[in-house]
């Protein structure tokens, strides 16, 4: 059975493109364009993995969602994908265990990585 990925991003184009790419790799994608919508989905569905944008309704929506998701389904791997990067001086790398605990995500990804890279990272987290 295809693995279910919850994809949350307020950028409709990122959602559209990433969904298409993930589906090509054989994943089933449930998408949401806000933290709120994602929370509603999580009431009914347990995904196998989640990809979350950072800035949505508020600038830390991704973290909040990540926290809630971890609380409800501790075993679901979480990827935070964002365009806020090292260039702006804000960099959320998940280097130390302490940072991982705080951010509550398994992986931090820069938006704009290739579909193949994304697929590779997902497969690693899902141990495929």
């Amino acid at each position, binding site marked *: 059975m295809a693995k279910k990925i919850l994809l949350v991003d307020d950028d409709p184009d*990122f959602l559209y*493109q990433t969904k298409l790419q993930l589906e090509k790799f054989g994943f089933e994608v449930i998408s949401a364009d806000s933290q709120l919508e994602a929370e509603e989905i999580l009431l009914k569905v347990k995904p196998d993995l989640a990809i979350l944008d950072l800035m949505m309704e508020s600038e830390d929506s991704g973290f909040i969602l990540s926290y809630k998701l971890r609380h409800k389904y501790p075993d679901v791997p979480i990827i935070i994908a964002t365009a806020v990067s090292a260039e*702006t001086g804000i960099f959320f790398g998940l280097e130390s265990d302490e940072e991982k605990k705080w951010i509550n995500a398994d992986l931090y990804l820069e938006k704009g990585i290739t579909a193949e890279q994304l697929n590779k990272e997902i497969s690693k987290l899902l141990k495929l």
Partner: protein
Amino acid sequence: MDTLKILIVDDESGIRSGVMRSLQHHVVSYPFMDEDFNFELIEAATGEEAIKILESTMPDIMLLDNKLPGIQGTDVLEYVKNKQYEIVVAMITSYASLDIAVKATGGGAFDFISKPFTPAELKASIDNIVKQLYLRRITRKLKDEGKKTRYQFLTILSHEMKAPLNALEGYLKMMKERQAGDDMSAYDIMIERSLNRISGMRYLIMNLLDFSKLRMGKKKENLKKINLNQLAKDAMITVQPLAIQKSIEIFLHSNKELNLTAYQENFELIFNNLLSNAVKYNKDGGRVDISVREEKNNIVIEVEDTGIGMTKEETNELFKEFVRIKNKKTKNITGSGLGLSIVKKVVDDYQGIINVESIPDQGSTFIIQIPKPLKTE
């Protein structure tokens, strides 16, 4: 009450105890300060001892005798300067020596207290130092806040500029790799979305230009007589193409010509932003009503639309930079999230107020009131 630490460095114990007595119950208060200050006193008999104390307890103020048994007062001063410690230093000098004064001032001493001094003279000097200290702290705080705001602005800005580029790049790659097959029409939606993102980016750039114009400050020679009715009409012409696309009618209501002296581009910004919003967030076949009038001592500009409206929570967020109301209804409307924050800045500059009344699915009314005569400083 806040307590400031004063370190007294003098080899004469009489001076030290005199200072202690004079200042232990002294309180400094100025009307512009949020709180009063009293003092905790620490003594050092030599420069060496003073440096040891500096390393363990950082004082706020140092009263420093120049003539000391070991290293000199000016050496201690230099130590403080090299370490970039934020201490306000006042030199105690037994005779007004110009040499020492010049050296000490260059070394960062703020004040001189010449021996012998009376308790009143000492207190006056301390009062002055506290004022200086307070102002320094306030200035630093404001600077830090300014830096933080600019930093946040840049962070969000780079995010806002990168997002459309990422989207465009994504679509172009998909087309390049013919991900939807060889039939061109399969890519129509991607092209449509790309054009949409480009127009969003154009909004952002135009708004940033407006923003920087505001920041450049105002030159008196650019003040001129403007006619609000005319500016409203000009803005109507500007949004006409978009209004025609959505079959929206725009009406201007005004019972007299309103002439005032102001910066024309400010009022162009107000009209253009409010009007283009009223059209963008309207329903097809809707209407926009602009009213320009005088009410008591205010100029009133009102723009009413029959659009999608907002909830109370949404209106509270509306005037912040880069805030865009995100919901199903606004999904396909492009904007930068800067327009209304710019309008608010302009209105603030004239010491006016901007309000919004809105009912979801019925429409919004933006009301600007600017006191007359216009503040053009």
